[in-house]
């Protein structure tokens, strides 16, 4: 009984693990969305939805942007829009660009290493299917 429960819990783990993995990358993803220019909050949310599989709760992104700004990685400015209300646009500071470049390099080399490691696992799965 206890064993069955343990196995069930283990099978459950990958989902939670994947969620953690995604959420852990949100900060980098938010910075990356601003690489080509300024965006406002909702645009960042949509950008992340379209360019990565990072669908996040809409309320999550604003406190993160606030924090990244406090850390000096982002700046913001209010811009009047046709919508009738101003929007808060974020852009990367020089420090933010540097930090993002370091993060991107670390991420790329990390994922290259892991992909190599996981190659046999993925190949075997293909032959099984």
């Amino acid at each position, binding site marked *: 009984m206890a064993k069955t429960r343990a196995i069930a819990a283990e099978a459950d783990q990958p989902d939670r693990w994947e969620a*953690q993995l995604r*959420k*852990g990358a*949100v*900060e980098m993803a938010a910075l990356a969305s601003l690489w080509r220019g300024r965006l*406002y*909050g*909702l645009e960042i949310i949509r950008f992340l939805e379209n360019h990565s599989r990072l669908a996040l*709760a*809409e*309320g*999550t992104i*604003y*406190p*993160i942007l*606030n*924090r990244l700004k*406090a850390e000096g990685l982002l700046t913001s400015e*209010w811009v009047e829009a046709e*919508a009738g*209300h*101003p*929007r*808060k646009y974020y852009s990367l500071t020089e420090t933010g660009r540097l930090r993002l470049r370091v993060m991107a390099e670390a991420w790329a080399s990390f994922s290259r290493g892991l992909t190599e490691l996981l190659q046999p696992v993925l190949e075997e799965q293909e032959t099984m299917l």
Partner: protein
Amino acid sequence: MTTETQIDSYLTALRLHLGPLTIAEREEIVKEIAAHVRDSAEESGASVETVLARLGSAEALAAQYRDGLLIRQASRSISPLVLLRASLRLATKGVFGVLVFFVAIFGYAIGGGLVLTALVKPILPANTGVWFDGQGHFMSSGVLFPPPGSQAHEVLGFWYIPLALIVGSLTLLATTWAIRTSLRVSQRWQSRL
């Protein structure tokens, strides 16, 4: 409820729960969230109700900003009160936080205790010190009432003062550093919530 009153009551609740932030910061956040709600409803054609539900409760949203601020301030602070408050908040979030909180309490108690006994030594010289018994085994240390009996001898004398001050201060410094480092590490984890 009309659309406007729905938005207004959400923003009022948000403003209320953002209490500890400065007025300027608070108003900026409220303005940004208000713009988000209007844009999001307009763009997706979803009702304001749906958009607000997607944002989560005003209280939960405000809590994310408040935690960010608390931890940001504390990771630059040396005040035990600020650091304890931040680690207490962290303790509500998981095992790591609980551990940090206990280290904080323990470190402050030991460090603060040592410094206090150093200050007490000139006033109560006979009661304060480090005692060994006849066989050279450690018996007790600190401020004792009454002082240990005649079989015990105190080994430090007035050297107790500088020693307790140095060890106590180092313990306090190490505790402060440990809490601040943990808070900074946890800040990275915040985005996972």
